[in-house]
């Protein structure tokens, strides 16, 4: 006997779907932030000065090795002490953006390094300026293969958004939590949230695979 009330589930579904808009917004905005942040970091990691490269590398390693949750706490509790008070949503998006920019910087770096060295040499032999070689020859080869990788990071970020609930962002899971604790009925809201995540992830993964096939051609 499964204690699942379909009528109750149907009655709370609209609320949850509405809340998933917050989840999607958080994903999109923090992903955009991570794309930009990753660019800054990869430039730092490839800087001509060791005094820049080394600290950037260390910070990236540190952020990648520590939990997003505690990093969010840090931003949420520490920043106001410095007079910076941001809304929970902005704090959360900033935290996720910073956290994932450390991964995305690595994706950019790998993409650049995957272009064969001979391509640089050929460009030099044809007397291209370094910037022109980058824009016309290297980037067009480096970008397509990393697009699916980036998309997978976006999906990973999507699945990390429930952590924002811990700093009081009312996203999908927090909404389910609130609904559940009102009547102490957890089965329907939690299961629905799981199913919504599963459905969206599966659709997104299928899109990435499609994209991968398209790019491979």
């Amino acid at each position, binding site marked *: 006997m*499964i*204690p699942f009330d379909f009528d109750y589930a149907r009655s709370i579904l609209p609320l949850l779907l509405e809340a998933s808009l917050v989840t999607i917004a958080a994903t999109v905005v923090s992903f955009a932030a991570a794309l930009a942040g990753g660019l800054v970091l990869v430039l730092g990691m490839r800087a001509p000065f060791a005094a820049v490269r080394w600290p950037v590398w260390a910070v990236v390693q*540190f952020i*990648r*090795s*520590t*939990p*997003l*949750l*505690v*990093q969010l*706490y*840090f931003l949420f*509790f*520490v920043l106001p*002490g410095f007079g910076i008070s941001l809304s929970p949503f902005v704090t959360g998006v900033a935290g996720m953006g910073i956290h994932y920019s450390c991964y995305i910087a690595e994706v950019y770096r790998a993409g650049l390094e995957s272009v064969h060295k001979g391509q640089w040499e050929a460009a030099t032999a044809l007397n291209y300026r370094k910037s022109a070689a980058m824009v016309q020859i290297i980037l067009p080869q480096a970008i397509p293969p990393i697009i699916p990788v980036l998309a997978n990071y976006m999906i990973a970020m*999507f*699945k*990390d*958004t*429930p*952590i924002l*609930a*811990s700093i009081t962002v009312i996203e999908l*899971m927090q909404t389910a*939590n609130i609904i*559940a604790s009102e009547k102490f009925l*957890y*089965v329907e809201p*939690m*299961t629905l*949230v*799981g199913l919504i*995540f*599963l459905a969206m*992830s*599966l659709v997104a*993964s299928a899109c990435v695979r499609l994209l991968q096939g398209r790019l491979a051609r």
Partner: protein
Amino acid sequence: MSLIYEARWVFLEGILTTIKITIAASLLAFAMAFLAGLGRLSPFAPLRWLALVYIEVFRGVALLVQLFWMFFVLPFFGIVLDPIVTAVLALGLCNGAYGAEIVRGAIKSVPHGQSEAACALNYSRQQALWKILIPQAIPMMLPPFGNLAIELLKATALVSLITVHDLSFQALTLQQTTMRTIEPFTVVLAGYFLIAIVITGLFRLAERQTNARLGRGAR
């Protein structure tokens, strides 16, 4: 910082809990990774589907949702688990699903000539898998498994949200008892970083060992 020193037992309790959960969940994750990864490669179709469903479900749902589901929903089905057990189960099953793709990918990336040679020497499918393919796949699995272990360590922070007194939970405890913010969170972040360094070191060591056994280091 003296406030932190006075609260060191709180910190230590947290870090020990985090380490315990990380180890237990990693063991479960590796076991599940092998089961599901080999399941995906099985010639027996129902086994392949079962493994696929497991992988897709546990990778497709946010870990925190899985944790909450096990913590809040399972009791409605009469299954009441200790929060730590819930934590280990959720972390192990979710990361095992990610690990399964590592296992499958590594085994599939052993050059095709190796299975052909095994076939030509008349090894059975099982013998070829266990004696030829898996030993060669393991060194390839180690680096991604190392990354997965770090991800798992970071994910243990979420268990604080189901009342487990791990390092992250103690960060909030410290924040409330010391009335400070920067110090407790910095110390806790450093604690995680330290564990991560140890994990990375252990995996590097294992890589060196397996590479040496492959005769690659003996050149």
